[in-house]
Each structure stands twice: as structure tokens, then as C-alpha cells.
């Protein structure tokens, strides 16, 4: 059995293969507790205007220490390359963050990524020295092109953001797994812990979950469930599953039957 099985992104090592989002929680303390239970070492964060009027509003950094948990600035809500670039340059300015998640959306209803804008932005950001983890469609050709322009991780969707539908296209995920050595992380669309196990069993290096934990009836228990399901899926993948057979093969030896 492999003793050390770290997730390595842009030369940085992480023990946990579960990345969680920090949005949609009832409040900051619920978010912080769920993150702790999930065991995640990376969390996605959004860049937004400071509330000038209500300064008493709690700050994310007061609840989640960026020295202990890696903040992954995300461009959620950006609909073109310009907005995404502006957001990530600002994120870098806040505290020197170079590891970022790029997400350029193309449609308000499906929240599908605009891959042309995404590709363009990935290339520019990589040249500026960013380490870009890229939210993308599960199209193997686009995944390859992202890799060619310098992405540091490929993050295909399982299903539309927040839909909870689980992985829709196993084949494409397997093809992307086969063609890339970059970290492959399922981002968006997972609904329950078993979805994460499936992602890991398909050979993904990690999963990113937000809504499925934050909006579960019991977010704390779900955070724990996802933590365990990612570990289970990874171990299952590394163990090498059995071949599938059409008919039954008995588990007990035939010899000595009375």
C-alpha cells in the first residue's frame, strides 16, 4: 500500500483530496465548522466589494485562517475574460495569491463555462505567473488545449453548478484522466457523498464541493460524509477493481461440498 498519497497541485502538497467552497452557508461559523469537519486544506473564496456601510459584518479571514487553510480565489460570477482577469489580479493584490481558480461562465441558466473565454484567460494568466486551476466542460479536446496553454489543474464539471445531479458523463472523465497527468478535479454538480466516491474511482485526483455540503439538511454530517467518501473512492481506485462478469462466480470453493 502506498504510504504517502498526497494531492500535488503546482508543486504544493495536500493531504486532503477534498476542496470545499465557502459559499451558501447560513453564517460564517457554520461554514468554518463544516470546513473543519471536511478535512479540506483548500477552500474556494470569492472577491467582492467591501461593505463600506456595515463594517460589523464578519470577515471570512476572521473565521478561516489563510495561514492554515489555502485560499483559492475564484472568479465565480464572471462572464467574460476581462472580468475574470480583473478579479484574479485583485485577488493576487490582497495577499499574493498565485494559485487561483478560473471560472468564466457563458450562460446564466446552465452556468456552463464559456470555453473560448476560459481558454483565452488561462493563457494570459499563466503568462502572468498565475497557477491556474481551470473550471471547464468535460470535453477532452478543450481539456487538452487548456493543458497546452499552461493550466495547472483541469476541473471539469460533473453537472451544472449547484444542480446536485452527480457525474453525467463517465466516459469523458475517463478519457480526460487517460490523456492528462495534471491534477484532475471534479468541480460542480455533485449532490451526495457517493458522487465523490465515483469521481475518485474514475481516477480523479480530487473533488470540489460547495452546495452539496452547504445546503444539506445537516451540513456538518455531510462534510464528514464527503471526507470519508473521497478517501474511500481514492483507496478503491488505487486498489484496482475486479473485472466485471456477466454471470455469477461463487465465492466459496466447490471442493468438499457435502
Amino acid at each position: 500500500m502506498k504510504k504517502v498519497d498526497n494531492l500535488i497541485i503546482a508543486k504544493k502538497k495536500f493531504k486532503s483530496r477534498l476542496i470545499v467552497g465557502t459559499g451558501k452557508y447560513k453564517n460564517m461559523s457554520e461554514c468554518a465548522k463544516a470546513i473543519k469537519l471536511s478535512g479540506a486544506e483548500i477552500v474556494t473564496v470569492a472577491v467582492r466589494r467591501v461593505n463600506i456601510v456595515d463594517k460589523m459584518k464578519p470577515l471570512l479571514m476572521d473565521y478561516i485562517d489563510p495561514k492554515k487553510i489555502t485560499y483559492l480565489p475564484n472568479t465565480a460570477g464572471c462572464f467574460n475574460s476581462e472580468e475574470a482577469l480583473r478579479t484574479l489580479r485583485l485577488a493576487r493584490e490582497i495577499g499574493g495569491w498565485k494559485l487561483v481558480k478560473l471560472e468564466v461562465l457563458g450562460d446564466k441558466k446552465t452556468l456552463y463555462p464559456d470555453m473560448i473565454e476560459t481558454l483565452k484567460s488561462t493563457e494570459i494568466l499563466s503568462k502572468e505567473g498565475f497557477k491556474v486551476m481551470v473550471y471547464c466542460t468535460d470535453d477532452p479536446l478543450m481539456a487538452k488545449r487548456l493543458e497546452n496553454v499552461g493550466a495547472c489543474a483541469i476541473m471539469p464539471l460533473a453537472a451544472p453548478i449547484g444542480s446536485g445531479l452527480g457525474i453525467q458523463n463517465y466516459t469523458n472523465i475517463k478519457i480526460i484522466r487517460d490523456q492528462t497527468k495534471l491534477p484532475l478535479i471534479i468541480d460542480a454538480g455533485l449532490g451526495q457523498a457517493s458522487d465523490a466516491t465515483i469521481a475518485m474511482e474514475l481516477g480523479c485526483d480530487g473533488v470540489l464541493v460547495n452546495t452539496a455540503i452547504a445546503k444539506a439538511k445537516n451540513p456538518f454530517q455531510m462534510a464528514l460524509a464527503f471526507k470519508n467518501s473521497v478517501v474511500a473512492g481514492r483507496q478503491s481506485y488505487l486498489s484496482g477493481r475486479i473485472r466485471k462478469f456477466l454471470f455469477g462466480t461463487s465465492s466459496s470453493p466447490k471442493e468438499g461440498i457435502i
Partner: protein
Amino acid sequence: MKKINKIKIKLNGKFIKIKDKTTLLSLIKKLKVPIKKVAIELNQTIVNKKSLGKIKIKKNNKIEIVHFIGGG
């Protein structure tokens, strides 16, 4: 008494009036914004936080102060 000139600027999408010749640093301090936890844009250009004290805000300047919040 000397009359203090006020100028109109746009801060985080809202028009406000501030004293003329205010520096970005004094504005940020007045707003009690923790400098280390934010990034600042002046007319869509990121401002180096070390030079905040040298930049005087002018009429109709657009200032954005952003930070990290919870997100997916």
C-alpha cells in the same frame, strides 16, 4: 474660517463626497478598512498598497475596495 472644498467620487459603486486633496490612505483609514485584507483599484487600475499615501483622490475618481468572501 476657510471653506473646505468637497469633491464627488464613486466608491464601491456609490457616489460619496469627500474632502478635496484626501489621499487614498487617509480614506481607507477613515473607513476603518483593514489594509492587509483588501485590494484597491483606482479607475480600474490596481493600486500598490505601499503608495496609498502618495495618491491624492481627484474629482470623479472611481475607487473599488474588495476583499474575500465566501464563494464556491
